């Protein structure tokens, strides 16, 4: 199960050439191998989701694609061009823009200034600050507020807006749900179709599997830096996802091989997260990472601090997210 070759027959080929290709990517954090020969191909217009437990290497993968980590092996191709050695800011101006984990707004800047920074070196495209204000109705009235004064959900919206005004071709979303109340997470993911309608491609990382299965067109599950499952959400069963997520039992079947229509309905049945243990259950406050097996999987924390860094202070604002958004005007 080391490194699923993405070259297996793929219904996505119809979309033309992949926009983003990752070949055999290996990344080390010091001595620790955070990613082990990961490959993936993202086609234009897709919502490609990387799932996995805490420490699976998801964030490391996204940050490496964004240019913030240097791979020890492997290549990253964007629109056919080799990006492996390109500086992060050059990747951003060429169309790979990330919404970082924990939002990472410029806290001393106002909402509008955050968006203006995002637009400074923007590519040409449909997204403008005005358009972001249309997407998030509350934002315009509070544009001169310091971004550090916003609630978690509002900050996440500004972070998405800041990325959108750069007019990315592929938008990297790192753990949008982190530290946010489920209702807020749901609201933010509900925006995704409107964003996709402007023609961009999304590669996202998420612990909250139930959310992902609703929005993704393709999923890839990581465990300890390796791919354990890959396929379309309708082609994988909840059992496969659970096995791949926690590394339980025998190796999960590869991709779409054994599944067909009947399994597909199973998959979507589980996807609404109506119950059941494991990753398909409704997310806990920190994205469903609380289930016992995960701590075993963590292995002393692959990608150590990244996953936890922003969690502690968020608890208080979970409830305030929905109420504060009506505070403006």
């Amino acid at each position, binding site marked *: 199960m080391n490194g699923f070759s993405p070259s297996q027959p793929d219904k996505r080929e119809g979309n033309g050439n992949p926009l983003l290709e990752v070949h055999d990517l290996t990344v080390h954090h010091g001595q620790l191998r955070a990613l082990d020969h990961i490959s993936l191909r993202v086609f234009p217009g897709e919502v490609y989701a990387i799932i996995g437990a805490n420490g699976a290497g998801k964030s490391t993968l996204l940050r490496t694609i964004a*240019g913030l980590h240097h791979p020890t092996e492997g290549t990253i191709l964007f629109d056919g061009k080799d990006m492996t050695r390109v500086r*992060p*800011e050059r990747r*951003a101006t060429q169309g790979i823009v990330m919404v970082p984990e924990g939002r*990472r707004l410029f806290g001393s*800047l106002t909402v509008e200034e*955050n968006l*203006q*920074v995002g637009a400074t070196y*923007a590519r040409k495209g449909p997204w403008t600050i005005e358009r972001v204000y249309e997407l998030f109705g509350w934002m315009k009235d509070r544009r001169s507020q310091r971004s550090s004064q916003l609630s978690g959900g509002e900050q996440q919206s500004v972070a998405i807006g800041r990325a959108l005004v750069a007019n990315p071709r592929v938008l990297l979303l790192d753990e949008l749900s982190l530290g946010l109340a489920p209702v807020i997470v749901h609201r933010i993911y509900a925006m995704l179709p409107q964003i996709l309608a402007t023609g961009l491609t999304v590669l996202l990382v998420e612990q909250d599997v139930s959310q992902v299965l609703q929005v993704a067109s393709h999923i890839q599950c990581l465990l300890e830096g390796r791919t354990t499952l890959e396929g379309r959400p309708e082609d994988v069963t909840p059992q496969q996802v659970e096995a791949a997520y926690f590394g339980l039992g025998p190796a999960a079947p590869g991709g779409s091989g054994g599944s067909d229509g009947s399994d597909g309905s199973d998959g979507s049945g589980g996807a609404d997260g109506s119950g059941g243990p494991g990753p398909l259950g409704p997310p806990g406050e920190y994205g469903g990472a609380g289930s016992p097996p995960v701590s075993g999987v963590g292995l002393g924390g692959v990608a150590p601090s990244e996953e936890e860094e922003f969690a502690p202070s968020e608890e208080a604002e979970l409830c305030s997210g929905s109420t504060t958004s009506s505070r403006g005007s």
Partner: protein
Amino acid sequence: MQWINDIIQGILTGGLYALFACGLSLLFGVMKVINLAHGDLAVVGGYVALGVIAVTHVPVLWSFLIVVPIMAVLGYALQRTVIQAALNRSILTTLIVTFGLSVVIENGLLQFASANSHSLGVNNSIITSSFSIGSQIQVAYLLLLILAVAVVVILGLQYFLSASRYGRLIRAVADDQEAAQMSGVDYRHVFGIAAAIAFGTVALAGIASGLTSQFSPTTGTDTILLFAFAAVVIGGIGSLWGTLLGGIVLGVAQQIGSQINSSDGFLAGYIVFLAVLILRPQGLTGRRAQS
């Protein structure tokens, strides 16, 4: 009456100290670099002014038109090479590297410009004269001019940071370099711009120092750097208005100290500096660290 005079003289000197300090404050605020070569660079600005005046015969007061751009270019270049290389390793490395820079500059100046003192003399009698308020208070036009320059520089910097595109990028990069990169911002270039501006103010400080007193290769660390540090710490790190206030408080403390005992001026200044560090470590205008 004597006290009022001390306070007025202190405020006037404070303008000079604020001018010394604002470049230090800016560099620390933006990239957390404590530039130990700050004072020596001001002295370099003084020597550059000497050279520019000797070659072009521009009036001393207008020499800044040439010296400031030269120092700004030097600032950008130093930032993109030596200081950025140190920053890539760690903040602590920048301390060592700027200390090394200070030693190199000082000894370089000793080698090529000798240990003799120089000053930038002004022949304009209006500038060298003073006017009096009442019978005891004398206000030197030169110090008043320097105070005015300090205020203008700080107002200008404040406006630049809050309203211009590059000012916004500088604040963004100061908040979060990595997030700025994700928006396509090359923080190294933004740091370079910030350093260029800081060095521009350092050039003004060097000229002002040469106008008010003599300078020699060691003046930079002996006085300018220490006064700049004291002004920044007293005022509150990262706040430009705080830096002006800090400079003035330092100036007034020195005046009052030397009034009590003519050799205790500097001592009084450093006692205030220590008192602020103990009682209000965030500085007079500083807010407590925010979570």
